Structure formats: C-alpha cells, structure tokens
C-alpha cells in the first residue's frame, strides 16, 4: 500500500534546482544572492566552442542565515553541463569561501555550505577549471580554521573528480541514498579498467560501491539522510551548531593510507570489504 498522504507531503530536495536548494536551506527571507544571473557573469569559453552558456555559469552563491547563524551557500546546478566547474563558476565558489574566511578574521563567524552536484572540472575550460578547483580546496582548508564547511551531496549527479576532493576536505559531509561520491565517475573507470571489472550501466553495482549508503557505512561521510527538504535542513543545522570536528577527516590521511596498504587488490572488491576495511569487522 502506498501512503499517498505521506507522498504528497514529502518535499524532495533532489528534485530542486540549485537556487531553490539554497533558498530551502536558508531562514525564510534571508536569501541574498551574490553575482546573480542578471549580472551575466558567464563563461567566456563555452560560446567559442559552440556550447550555450548559462547566466550564472551553473553556480549560485547566496548569503543568509540558517537557524540564525550566518552562512554562505554555494550551490552547483547539476542540470547545466553536468554541474561541471569552469573558470567563472569555480571562481565564484572559491571567492565566496575566501570572503567567508575574511569575515571570520573580522569577527563575523560565517559558516559555509556546499551543495555539490558535479562531475568535476569542465573539460571545455581545462586548466582554468582545474586551477579554480585548487583555489576551492585551499579556501576550504583556510575557512576550516574558524568555522565548519558542510558539504551536501544529495544527487542525482553526485560528486566526482576534483570536487570529490573538495567534498573530502569538508568538515562534515551529508549524503542521501541518491548520492554518489567518487574520484572517477563510473564511465571513466569502465573505460580504463574494462567493462568486465566495472560496468557503468549496472546501477545497483555502481551504487553499492559509490552510493550514499555505502559511503556512510564506510565512515567516509557523516550523515545519511532521506531525500526530504526538512530533514536535510535539520541535519545541516545540527552540523553547523556542532562547530568544528575534533579532527577533520582530511587530517586522518595517515590512518586511511594504513588501511589501504592492507587491502588485497587481487580479487574483485565487494562493498562489504570496503566497509570492513574502514570501520573494522562488525558482526
């Protein structure tokens, strides 16, 4: 039996666009967009390659408050060019994070929330996109001295490439079942490793290894939440209230490397092996 009342009352976060997601997380009336689409700061590179640009280059930067705390949100629009980051969109995120750190040095405790739906760098903008992503990484590390940076991967694009490193650098990471998180996307791995090893069309297989539930069970993300606006907002708010984690995951690299060194790479890796590797064997 389908509970139609529950279905009708459910507000999906995954189905929202980047701007709507940012608005849904912020306190009512506090949303203020920086470099809004009417300023038309667009990619200068796409048009020359015959690709239609978007007025905000697929990145929404908004300031506001969440449960009264000052926050800046950077939301990536996954529907535009696969959420890929080019020169402009990347600079918008890096700039927003750098200004948040600047705020903190001036005594304003701005926190950051990253809504990540991205395949990583925009190949049409090559090195400019990569450089921007490196700026984002540096800015996350800088801001984390003062206040938490919360990453949200809701789906359905997921978070890959250089931006998966940005996700790994976040103070906290929140995912839904729809999310995927990985350095290389499924098609890239299939191309490199062969279809026998990694079939990118096998959705249950892909999600069993890189999906939100698996990433949570492996201790690589901090919260696993249903695709529901209110629940995601509550959890993000809780993480912001917690302040900085005692030790950010990015500073536990040694521990992760030690675990990886003990991995036997001969046989095909099963999802349960990864969970055991990172969390220890559980009965």
């Amino acid at each position, binding site marked *: 039996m389908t509970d139609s009342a529950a279905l009708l009352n459910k507000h999906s976060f995954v189905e929202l*666009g980047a701007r709507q997601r940012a608005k849904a997380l912020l306190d009512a009336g506090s949303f203020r967009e920086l470099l809004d*689409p*009417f300023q038309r700061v667009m990619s200068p590179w796409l*048009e020359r390659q*015959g*690709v*239609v*640009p*978007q*007025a905000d280059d*697929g990145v929404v930067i908004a300031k506001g408050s969440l449960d009264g705390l000052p926050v800046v949100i950077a939301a990536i*629009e996954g*529907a*535009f*060019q696969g959420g890929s980051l080019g020169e402009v969109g990347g600079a918008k995120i890096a700039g927003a994070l750098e200004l948040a750190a600047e705020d903190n040095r001036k005594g304003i405790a701005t926190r950051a929330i990253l809504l990540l739906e991205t395949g990583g760098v925009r190949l049409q903008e090559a090195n400019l996109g990569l450089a921007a992503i490196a700026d984002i990484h540096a800015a996350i590390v800088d801001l984390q001295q003062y206040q938490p940076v919360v990453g949200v991967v809701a789906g359905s694009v997921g978070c890959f490439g250089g931006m998966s490193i940005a996700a790994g650098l976040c103070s906290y990471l929140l995912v839904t079942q729809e999310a995927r998180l990985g350095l290389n996307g499924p098609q890239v791995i299939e191309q490199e490793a062969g279809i026998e090893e990694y079939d990118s069309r096998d959705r249950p297989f892909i999600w069993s290894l890189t999906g939100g539930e698996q990433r949570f069970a492996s201790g690589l993300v901090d919260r696993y939440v249903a695709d529901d606006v209110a629940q995601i907002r509550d959890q993000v708010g809780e993480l912001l209230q917690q302040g900085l984690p005692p030790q950010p995951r990015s500073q536990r690299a040694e521990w992760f490397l030690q675990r990886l060194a003990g991995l036997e790479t001969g046989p095909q890796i099963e999802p349960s092996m990864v969970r055991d590797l990172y969390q220890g064997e559980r009965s």
Partner: protein
Amino acid sequence: METLSFEFPAGQPPRGRALVGCVGSGDLEVLIEPGLAGRLTINVQTSVNGSEQRWQHLFARMFDGTTPPAMSIDIHDFGATPGVVRLRLEQGFEEIGHD
C-alpha cells in the same frame, strides 16, 4: 549554436524581472527584464541550428492579437521543444507580475 534576435511591438515596461528554467537537456533559461517602452526584444542563443523560423512562428503566435509588456528577454536554449519554450515564457510572464 546560433544567436538570433527578434523584435515585436509592445506596451509599457513591467516593474519586475524574472528568471525561469535552466540550460539543461531539453530545457531553456529565460531572463526577463524591463525594456524600452513600445519594444519587446528577444535574444536567443540556441544549441539547435537552423531553427530561426520556428522561433519566429512561436513568438508571433504567442503575441498575436495582444500587446505584450515592453521586455528585454534573453533566452539560453538547450534543445527545448516549442511546447516547453511556451510554458517557460508563460511562467516568466506570470512571475514578472508578482515581484
């Protein structure tokens, strides 16, 4: 990719502006701002080449027998069908109404 321009007679400019849609597959982004009184200008960037006549007919049919507000409209189209274009434009016109 093609860039197209259209112009239609119009009334007075609206007060608000609006953004609807997204440059995603089969969709389009429409930015509507107040224009100069008497003129409705539309700029279209579309991924579909050779579609000028289709856009011309679509707009002509929409504004036929009406005097639209004087707007400056920018469209970034990623292969939207005429039906989707019309829905997005109507959504945008509704939104400039309430500010």
